[in-house]
């Protein structure tokens, strides 16, 4: 099995991060006299590499997936993210994954406190995945959890707004 773990960035411990921050702050002071900081153009170039590339990749993927599934959705299906994401498919996918998470958490082999990502990680480890693969699985699970939280927060805000609106109408 491909061991991409060796190629993945190594993460410093929290202590090392603090030390490195102090070192770089001191180094920055020394260097600022001899070497001027990176030019705005240089910063922009770097930003274009990372942010733009990431954004373009995500947009292309969303467009591609939408093309593949749009023939399966009803003509009235609601779209979000600039029309590139089918909301019914997204919500159905999230519900499916949430249900699986709940069922797995009920098994005695998994402590109930384990999050979705940890479950996938454990599954990956049991399946004998390499360190790199496991890291990618956890990263994926973590970002999916982030999206879950974001969509849930949006739903909660929407419900709150609807509730407020109803109360206002009753007051009138």
């Amino acid at each position, binding site marked *: 099995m491909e061991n991409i773990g060796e190629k993945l960035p190594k993460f410093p411990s929290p202590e090392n991060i603090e030390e490195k921050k102090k070192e770089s702050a001191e180094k920055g002071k020394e260097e600022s006299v001899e070497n001027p900081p990176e030019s705005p153009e240089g910063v922009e170039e770097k930003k274009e590499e990372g942010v733009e590339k*990431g954004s373009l990749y995500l947009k292309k*993927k969303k467009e591609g997936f939408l093309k593949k599934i749009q023939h399966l959705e009803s003509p009235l299906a609601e779209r979000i993210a600039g029309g590139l994401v089918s*909301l019914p498919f997204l919500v159905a996918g999230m519900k499916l994954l949430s249900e699986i998470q709940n069922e797995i958490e009920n098994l005695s082999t998994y402590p109930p406190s384990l999050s979705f990502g940890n479950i996938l990680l454990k599954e990956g480890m049991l399946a004998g995945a390499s360190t790199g693969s496991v890291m990618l699985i956890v990263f994926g699970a973590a970002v999916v959890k982030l999206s879950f939280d974001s969509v849930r927060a949006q739903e909660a805000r929407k419900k709150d707004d609807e509730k407020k609106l109803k109360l206002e109408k009753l007051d009138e």
Partner: protein
Amino acid sequence: MANKLPEDLDNFIKKFQDLFLAKGFTEKEFKKQLEELGVVIIMAFLNKLLEQKPPAQKFASEEEILSYLKKNFSQEEIKETMQSESKKISKEYLENVLGKI
């Protein structure tokens, strides 16, 4: 294998944040793209499942989609597909942003 379960996913993600900030991301951009990436992973996962067993007709609601998926796929199939798609998309995205890994 010496893998350890991360204590929580938020701390795990914070470790990635430093790498992204070094590439010119702001914290807001980092969080926004990660949320979008989560959506892309879910869409990739659904697309893979529906490619394997294409439905005969259009879905009218999210309940219909959910019911179709639950009827046609085992938990094992769902977990495996989620794992492989999540890994594939995450790797592609990280390579696009951080370079070859």
